């Protein structure tokens, strides 16, 4: 590691200790507000990962560390900021204004402590045994996962608060039998009352967790240095081989204490309203800070403190005077929210309670004695009203005449129609008001045109996500009010979305681009709209993509039924359905590759790619392949690629269903289906998931009773796990649901939109898909199935058909006036015994290099 640059006398240095959520926000604010114009910034963090979304920590097992990162590149764009990771600050000297860390002593002009908090581990015997963990960092979660995969079976979480429940759910997802041990009489005692706690407990138990309340942990039991269980006061020992402590947090204020800075009575670095400590050049923000003696264990107040410090350093007047402590639990399937004065501590306040024990819903509103203002509330089992209620508390706006409507079940209430005042804080994590959101959509210069753009520009919705529905509603209401239509034009030639164009073409019965552009567009099209129209026509008509009327509008790869490579040659990828191939088939592939000099590789999609084919050789290559029984693999099309399979119950000792046969059947059923983007599937023979089905647009996993269907997974640039759509299906039902799902996607998705972002963007998300596909709520089911049946019935192999048609074959030539001369711009070298493309500096001139009359 390089030594710190000597401090330039004219550029003061700001040192930040801790690169967590708040430290990162502080640096961002310093860059945005121009502090780096005058100051150099050095950030020192002791974790090896750059700042990441700790609030979303539990999703680590699902999405991985990279998705959580707040600084994926690991460096700030601003060269005046230096980030040092994996290094702890071990001391502060306020007299000489230096901090000590691995690189030596570093001088500062201003110092910000953003060291966060550490989990509190109660001082019980055995807490250091192997198998004891805390739940705070990526490192902690990696260690827990390793222990779980190394054979731990039973896990116990000490603490039934918000974080304890998150940790417990994570253990459950890792496959552990999980116990929650809580000292108080109910779960989440800080946020909910006894009645709410009881409803919450039933939900948590329904997830398969065992809850022990009124249970005080007295010791961690062990044998040979390893955990074997928990000792409880007044109860039997609880056997466990993994223990996670989640019994609260303690601010990391040790550095400040040792430096002689004042700390709060109950811990935390004492700071004033500007977040300044007792030393004028030292500041503290986030969970390590205690403004007015109070530590805030949430990220939003920390962000606010970061802004205040930067504001102070650039000479602004900002202050931090306390924060909203609203919380919403993100446990899968269990909604819990608590906001404002949830326990009716305000003098004369009244409570409105709605409880439905059968549905597992408990909602309470706390209102002022005149019933006019909302003071707080708690929601268990259904927190959908949270987004609207919380800002009402923060802004103190008048309640509607029947406040109970706000918590009555949807349909009877009018929660989403309550108008918020401009100053209402919509996103508490990032302190974004309704006015900020409308400003982003209304501004002159490059206004936001969607809720996701607002999230990018203002931050609203980017942290816990609980405000997203309200953000979306505000944006849509704004557009509706303006009578403005959001510009979703495909391109300059079509002022409509792909979905609108799809409907227009279907209704108009068009069969060619010329008719479509004449009826609905302007100009002569481009590389965006032409392939889109081509794909829609192919979905609707299932005609040959090289038919004369439409071949010039096909996307590059469709135009030659092969994938173009960097040197202008093509790859050839025959279908190998489900990855199953006969030895004879392999021999043919080998012979063809050898005879045409093609580079051969096993793909990531369980098939074989032959690369480096000259365009004019494609027909001869395919003649051989078709004769041997191969067909197009559509690797070039926005269409079904592969349905990956595992060997399943036929061979595998764990398999419970014949996954290979199903994968082949599905690949044959959906082959050739032109769609907004490519579609991939997978079928695994048991829950071990060797076919990685949940990484696909549709994934099927065998169960003892049938098949579980998962949809909308994605590999690629933004990986997403497919989510469960329906369980334990028989094959017929599975196919019906898949037909509906895929056709629904083909008809309504945007151009080049994979299924994952499509579902994410649908109003109602996966629930909407389930309504259409499983519940048939729109009554579209049979129509979608019929459309798929029509596709299946009219399928023909594109390559076999091309070989039969001289007109189509005519386009596969090197030079229209010299069909026997191969393009001299294409050359190959050799790597590991196979062909490899070689690019030329510029156009190759045959006349000059080879001489007149001998162009070969």
């Amino acid at each position, binding site marked *: 590691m390089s030594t710190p640059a000597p401090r330039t006398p004219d550029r003061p240095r700001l040192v930040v200790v801790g690169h967590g959520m708040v430290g990162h926000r502080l640096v961002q604010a310093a860059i945005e507000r121009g502090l780096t114009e005058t100051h150099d910034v050095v950030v020192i963090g002791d974790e090896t990962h750059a700042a990441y979304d700790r609030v979303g920590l539990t999703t680590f097992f699902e999405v991985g560390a990279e998705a959580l990162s707040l600084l994926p590149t690991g460096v700030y764009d601003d060269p005046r900021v230096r980030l040092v990771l994996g290094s702890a600050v071990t001391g502060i000297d306020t007299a000489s204004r230096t901090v000590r860390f691995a690189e030596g002593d570093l001088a500062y002009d201003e110092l910000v402590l953003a060291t966060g908090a550490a989990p509190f581990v109660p001082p019980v015997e055995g807490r250091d045994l192997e198998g004891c963990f805390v739940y705070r960092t990526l490192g902690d979660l990696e260690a827990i996962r390793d222990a779980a995969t190394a054979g731990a079976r039973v896990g116990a979480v000490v603490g039934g608060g918000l974080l304890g429940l998150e940790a417990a759910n994570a253990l459950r997802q890792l496959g552990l039998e999980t116990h929650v041990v809580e000292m108080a009489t109910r779960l989440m005692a800080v946020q909910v009352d006894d009645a709410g706690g009881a409803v919450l407990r039933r939900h948590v138990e329904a997830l398969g967790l065992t809850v022990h309340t009124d249970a005080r942990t007295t010791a961690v039991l062990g044998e040979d240095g390893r955990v074997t269980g928990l000792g409880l006061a007044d109860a039997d020992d609880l056997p466990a081989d993994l223990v996670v402590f989640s019994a609260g947090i303690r601010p990391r204020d040790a550095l400040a204490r040792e430096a002689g800075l004042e700390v709060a009575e109950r811990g935390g670095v004492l700071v004033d309203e500007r977040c300044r400590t007792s030393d004028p050049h030292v500041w503290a923000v986030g969970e390590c800070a205690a403004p007015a003696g109070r530590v805030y264990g949430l990220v939003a107040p920390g962000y606010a403190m970061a802004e205040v410090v930067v504001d102070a350093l650039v000479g602004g007047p900002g202050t931090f005077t306390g924060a909203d402590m609203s919380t919403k639990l993100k446990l899968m399937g269990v909604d819990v929210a608590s906001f404002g004065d949830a326990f009716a501590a305000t003098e004369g306040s009244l409570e409105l309670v709605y409880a439905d024990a059968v549905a597992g819903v408990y909602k309470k509103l706390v209102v002022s004695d005149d019933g006019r203002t909302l003071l707080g509330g708690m929601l268990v089992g259904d927190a959908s009203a949270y987004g609207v209620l919380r800002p009402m508390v923060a802004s103190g706006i008048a309640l509607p005449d029947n406040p109970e409507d706000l918590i009555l079940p949807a349909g009877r209430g009018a929660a989403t129609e309550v108008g918020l005042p401009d100053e209402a804080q919509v996103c508490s994590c990032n302190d974004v008001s309704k006015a900020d959101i409308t400003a982003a959509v209304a501004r002159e210069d490059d206004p936001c045109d969607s809720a996701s753009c607002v999230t990018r520009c203002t931050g609203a919705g980017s942290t816990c996500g609980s405000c997203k529905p309200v953000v979306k509603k505000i944006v849509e209401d704004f557009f509706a009010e303006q009578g403005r239509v959001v510009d979703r034009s495909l391109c*300059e*030639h079509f002022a409509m979305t792909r979905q609108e164009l799809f409907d227009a073409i279907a209704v108009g019965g068009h069969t060619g681009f010329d008719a479509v552009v004449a009826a609905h567009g302007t*100009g*002569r*099209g*481009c*590389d965006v709209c*032409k*392939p889109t129209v081509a794909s829609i026509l192919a979905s609707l008509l299932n005609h040959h993509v090289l038919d*004369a009327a439409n*071949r*010039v*509008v096909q*996307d*590059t790869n469709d*135009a*030659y039924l092969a994938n*173009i490579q*960097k*040197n*202008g040659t093509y790859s050839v990828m025959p279908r190998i359905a489900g990855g199953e191939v006969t030895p004879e088939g392999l021999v043919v592939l080998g012979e063809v590759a050898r005879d045409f000099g093609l580079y051969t590789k096993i793909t990531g999609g369980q098939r074989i790619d032959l690369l480096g084919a000259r*365009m004019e050789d494609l027909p001869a290559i395919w003649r051989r392949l078709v004769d041997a029984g191969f067909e197009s693999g559509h690797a070039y099309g926005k269409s079904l690629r592969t349905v990956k399979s595992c060997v399943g119950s036929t061979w595998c000792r764990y398999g419970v269903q014949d996954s290979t046969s199903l994968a082949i059947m599905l690949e044959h059923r959906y082959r050739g289906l032109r769609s907004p983007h490519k579609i991939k599937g997978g079928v695994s023979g048991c829950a071990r998931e060797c076919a990685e089905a949940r990484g696909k647009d549709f994934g099927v996993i065998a169960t003892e009773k049938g098949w579980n269907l998962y949809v909308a997974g994605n590999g690629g640039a933004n990986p997403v796990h497919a989510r469960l759509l329906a369980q334990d299906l028989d094959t017929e039902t599975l196919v019906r649901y898949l037909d509906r799902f895929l056709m629904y996607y083909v008809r309504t998705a945007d151009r080049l939109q994979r299924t994952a972002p499509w579902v994410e963007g649908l109003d109602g998300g996966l629930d909407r898909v389930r309504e259409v596909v499983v519940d048939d709520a729109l009554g579209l089911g049979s129509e979608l199935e019929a459309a798929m049946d029509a596709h299946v019935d009219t399928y023909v192999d594109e390559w076999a058909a091309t070989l039969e048609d001289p007109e189509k074959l*005519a386009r596969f030539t*090197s*030079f*229209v*006036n*010299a*069909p*026997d*001369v191969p*393009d*001299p*711009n*294409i050359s190959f070298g050799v790597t590991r015994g196979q062909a490899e493309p070689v*690019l*030329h*500096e*510029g*156009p*190759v*001139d*045959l*006349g*000059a*290099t*080879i001489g*007149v*009359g001998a*162009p*070969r």
Partner: protein
Amino acid sequence: MNETVRETVGGSASGTGTWTPVCPLSRIDVEGGVTALVGGRAVAVFRTFADEVFALDNVDPFSRASVLARGIVGTRGDVDFVASPMHKQAFALRTGECLDDPTVRVAAYDVRVVDGTVEVGGVRGAR
């Protein structure tokens, strides 16, 4: 060896008024392209919706692959263009100028249709 080729290669001299017949106009799809060998070089010949014919060097300067004739032909505003099939940069058919990066251009060739036959001449303007 193909007769036409020998002739054109022999007569190759860019910009000197030599015309190489390459194919009947009907051989080029409307809004499509073909590759021709002209003076030893790969030349992309396009036909627009208005039945005008244009010719550009076939090598895409961005990817250095000989592929432009295989791109999609369309319009940007009033300008006829082809999108490179490799990475979709747009080139004006008339001038060879790259519409996404004015510092880049490909050579544009003279081209005409005589009695239904497309003929390519030399590179337009000075090289």
